[in-house]
């Protein structure tokens, strides 16, 4: 691990051990949420606790509304965000990302018993819901050159699922993991529509500057170690029963 207490972060306040402040919405199970004890819990939290151990730094979590997290990031009130942020070209223009630690894919969700929709081509002439902040809209648009798919954006994932169940829309596209978990948790009569459509990589964004570059390097090293000693896989198994941390 990284021993020298040289990691100084902009938001660190505590004396002694260097610390890093990680922002999270606390509203995205099972990645980040409040458990029965009222404490932050989830995949992201476990990953960061482990990173902290490996880097020998204090990890401090801050919760805020998702859209607020980026203001906090930009203004230096937090150092990074742990909230399943997908890496895209556009985002890379603004932020520096650590190495991917989750590999996922886009997944269609349909009403139970609907065997019509299995892939993007089945969506032609249909209504499909996507969540705000996801990249599924551009993913579908890229495929749908002839503009035949009706895309509806939702502020709230659960709202879009309700609409599929009620029959207002035909399908929802979301993260594969989130899809599986939500179908089970929501109790709505839904099912997965075919296999996942594409691959996505998620990681932690940092404000682009020299100091952060050094930190990112150390985080990458810690993630590498976690992959090697299998702790990353263990955390994934604990939350999902599968390994989402490798391609």
């Amino acid at each position, binding site marked *: 691990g990284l021993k020298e207490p040289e990691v100084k972060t902009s938001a660190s306040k505590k004396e002694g051990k260097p610390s890093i402040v990680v922002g999270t919405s606390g509203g995205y199970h099972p990645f980040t949420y409040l458990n029965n004890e009222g404490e932050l819990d989830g995949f992201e939290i476990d990953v960061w606790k482990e990173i902290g151990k490996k880097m020998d730094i204090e990890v401090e979590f801050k919760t805020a509304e998702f859209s607020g997290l980026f203001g906090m990031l930009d203004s230096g009130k937090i150092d990074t965000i742990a909230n399943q942020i997908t890496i895209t070209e556009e985002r890379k223009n603004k932020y520096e990302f650590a190495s991917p630690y989750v590999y996922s894919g886009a997944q269609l969700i349909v009403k139970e018993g609907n065997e019509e929709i299995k892939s993007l081509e089945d969506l032609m002439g249909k209504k499909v819901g996507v969540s705000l902040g996801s990249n599924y809209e551009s993913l579908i648009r890229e495929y749908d050159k002839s503009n035949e798919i009706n895309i*509806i*954006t939702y502020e709230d994932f659960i*709202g879009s699922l309700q609409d599929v169940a009620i029959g207002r829309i035909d399908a929802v596209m979301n993260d594969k993991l989130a899809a599986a978990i939500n179908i089970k948790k929501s109790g709505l009569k839904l099912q997965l529509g075919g296999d996942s459509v594409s691959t996505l990589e998620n990681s932690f964004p940092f404000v682009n500057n020299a100091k952060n570059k050094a930190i990112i390097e150390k985080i990458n090293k810690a993630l590498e170690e976690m992959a090697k000693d299998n702790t990353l896989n263990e955390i994934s198994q604990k939350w999902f029963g599968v390994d989402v941390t490798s391609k």
Partner: protein
Amino acid sequence: MINLDFQFIIEIFPKLLSSVHITLSLTLISMFIGIFVGTMLGIIRVYKIKALDKLASIYISFFRGTPLIVQLFILYYGMPQIIPKFAEVSAYMAAFIGLSLNSGAYMAEIIRSSINAIDKGQMEAALSVGMTKWQAMRRIIFPQAFRIAVPGLGNTFVSLLKETSLAFVLGVSEVLAKGKMISAATYKFFETYLAVAIIYWIITLTFTYIQSKIEKRLNTAYS
């Protein structure tokens, strides 16, 4: 440190403006229906019209007391379970039904207080010349109460303007929703919100200008 990307702000304007008609139509229609609902409720409460008074109280307390988002949820996701026909109601429809019912509750209070502010002698004089209560309301009391209500109704209008964004939870994408979608790809929340704020502000300024004209007119009798 936040470095505002002004280029970006300018770029997204046309995209945001393409949704302005949704925001505006939602606001105006809801305002219109809301004033009607609010006026009815206001009258019922001022004149304590028997059975209805209690109902009006409950209505107002529910719609003011609970978050609009819950009301929209119930309307859009809850109602179809009770009345299946409701499943056909579009998100847009549901949004403006919800916004109308909600703003109606707020306006009821404003209208109630402005009717109460009118000297009782005005109603008496109207009754004494043979008007019915309703004629007196329409001809004498309302026009005077309206003058007092305008600033409060203006408050409701600008609140409503911004609350239309909640319709996004139902999938209606008005200005703010559009902004969020645009910014989601880039995470330029700050810039987007600023651009949205400018649009809202311009709408509000236009409306405030109209409001001040109305007020001036209503004040002629009192200056």
